[in-house]
């Protein structure tokens, strides 16, 4: 570090030395215009379905099907009021309950375990590690379908407990794994200093280590929350009338005889917006979380 600082005199900075400019040019592929054209094409592709959701959600049934598409029609909130007063309102509540409960359970059990994994030599750690990876990458069908059979016998089908438990098969290993990465970034000296000052292990974790690992915790919370909020496969199999979550309810609007794209889009939008808002609110560390902390932001 210090050697580099010496070879690059501070006085050069305002003048922008030549290697720097060439370096910046080397970073991009092709000319500026081509880059822009390609990025705009990609952006149109990305924004198209989101624009469809947003515009159709506020259209009357007739306008929703109109071709050519009506860009500016009288927006109506009718779709939302129909949805929210009907069964869909109940489904959103179910989704909130399941997402909050799944996230809470994952963090409550996963944070202490991740801390322990980061700090203490765990006997059989490699085996536990591999098991966690297997649990996370295994297709949900591996767990969900036997659970469906088990739940039939235990009367756990169409219950919140059953669904949350099924979600933890993937979410809990993910949480432990990621929390371990984040705790490993917190210097050990921090806990040790707190212990020397007379803190109990619990107090040191609560007062010193957790605040230091807070960005990691919010990231994990966001990712786990997003995953359980939008989950479809398990919910489609394990829920029924009573605990049907919003994504499953969205599907029930597809292809029915009285199909109304306005309501369908509004339902989709209601699933999308909270996730978007939560991501924008937390944002930091999103990428490092996605990659198990392997890629720093």
């Amino acid at each position, binding site marked *: 570090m210090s050697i580099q600082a010496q070879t690059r005199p501070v006085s050069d900075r305002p003048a922008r030395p030549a290697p720097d400019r060439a370096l910046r040019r080397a970073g991009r592929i092709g000319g500026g215009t081509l880059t822009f054209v390609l990025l705009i094409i*990609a952006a149109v592709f990305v924004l198209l379905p989101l624009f469809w959701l947003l515009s159709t959600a506020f259209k009357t049934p007739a306008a929703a099907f109109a*071709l050519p598409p009506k860009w500016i029609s009288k927006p109506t909130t009718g779709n939302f009021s129909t949805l929210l007063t009907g069964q869909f309102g109940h489904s959103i509540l179910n989704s909130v309950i399941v997402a909050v409960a799944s996230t809470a359970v994952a963090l409550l059990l996963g944070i202490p375990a991740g801390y322990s994994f980061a700090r203490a030599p765990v006997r059989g750690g490699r085996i536990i590690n591999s098991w966690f990876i297997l649990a996370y990458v295994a297709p949900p069908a591996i767990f969900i379908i*036997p659970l469906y059979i088990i739940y039939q016998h235990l009367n756990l089908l169409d219950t919140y407990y059953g669904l949350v438990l099924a979600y*933890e098969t993937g979410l*809990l290993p993910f949480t432990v794994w990621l929390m371990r990465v984040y705790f490993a970034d917190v210097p050990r000296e921090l806990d040790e200093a707190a212990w020397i000052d007379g803190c109990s*292990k619990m107090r040191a974790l609560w007062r010193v280590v957790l605040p230091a690992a807070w960005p990691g915790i919010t990231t994990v919370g966001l990712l786990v929350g997003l995953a359980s909020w*939008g989950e479809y496969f398990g919910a489609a199999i394990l829920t029924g009338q009573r605990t049907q979550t919003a*994504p499953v309810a969205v599907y029930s609007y597809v292809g029915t005889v009285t199909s109304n*794209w306005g309501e369908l889009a509004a339902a989709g939008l209601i699933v999308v917006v909270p996730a978007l808002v939560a*991501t924008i609110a937390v944002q930091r560390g999103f990428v490092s979380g996605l990659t198990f902390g392997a890629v720093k932001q």
Partner: protein
Amino acid sequence: MFDRRFFGLAAVPAFLAVFIITAVPLVIGLGLSFSSVTSTHNGVFPLTLSNYGHIFSDSEVHTVLLNTLIYVVLAVGLETLLGLGLALLMTRKNRAISVFRVIFLLPLTVAGIASAISWGALLNTSQGWIDYFLKLAHLPQPNWLASPTTAMPSVVLVDLWSGVPVVAVIVLAALLSAPKDPIEAALVDGAGPWARFRYVTFPAIRPALVLAALLRTVAAFQQFALFQVLTGGGPGLNTTVLNFYVYQQTIVFNNIGYGAALAMLLLVVMAVPLVVLFLYSRRR
């Protein structure tokens, strides 16, 4: 200094919970795969190998496996390549580029079911916007989701929508955090753009790229919402991949035992590319 009891107590609940909720279904699933539980036969016994025998002899399974291979290779391959390209386009820092960076972050937050319904509507043949615009431009309007030739490519296209941004965002983060000095050195040494990418940039981002490909492979094998909403596995068996087939056999047709055996097959099939990618990431 070291408190074995505290760390033990902190770790045990989660480890125990994970072990129970994964091992129990796994063992029961394995047991069911040898059983003959169907809609008409409720008993688990006798345990036989007949489900596995059926898998190997059933030509439907062969079609499904081929579909799975096509889907995973196309989706992961294109997502990795296009994601890498997109990331390289966004390395420059200015205001316009930061807008694009935000735009390409959006699909990462969108639930699969929401992207599925939007694309289903957009690709609809009589009412969809896409065919409408193709018609205006006097271009052919394929029967996107209902024709055997375009159904699978269409599902892959929709998978790209969520997958390419994932790869791009991960690779971009790696690109931006890569040290600048080696590129500088390569420039001084007179390396051309391709040589700089091949020998300097690529090695620096390879771990991130492999990780992104791994994540997309896992996602591709687990893909369910797109198939159910867009094609229902059709036309015919054209877009029925293994994960969807497991669902159909167990939940729809109630062939529990057979479906459980297919789920074990899914686990084995999925392990192959994951191990390959993992070994590639270890190679120097």
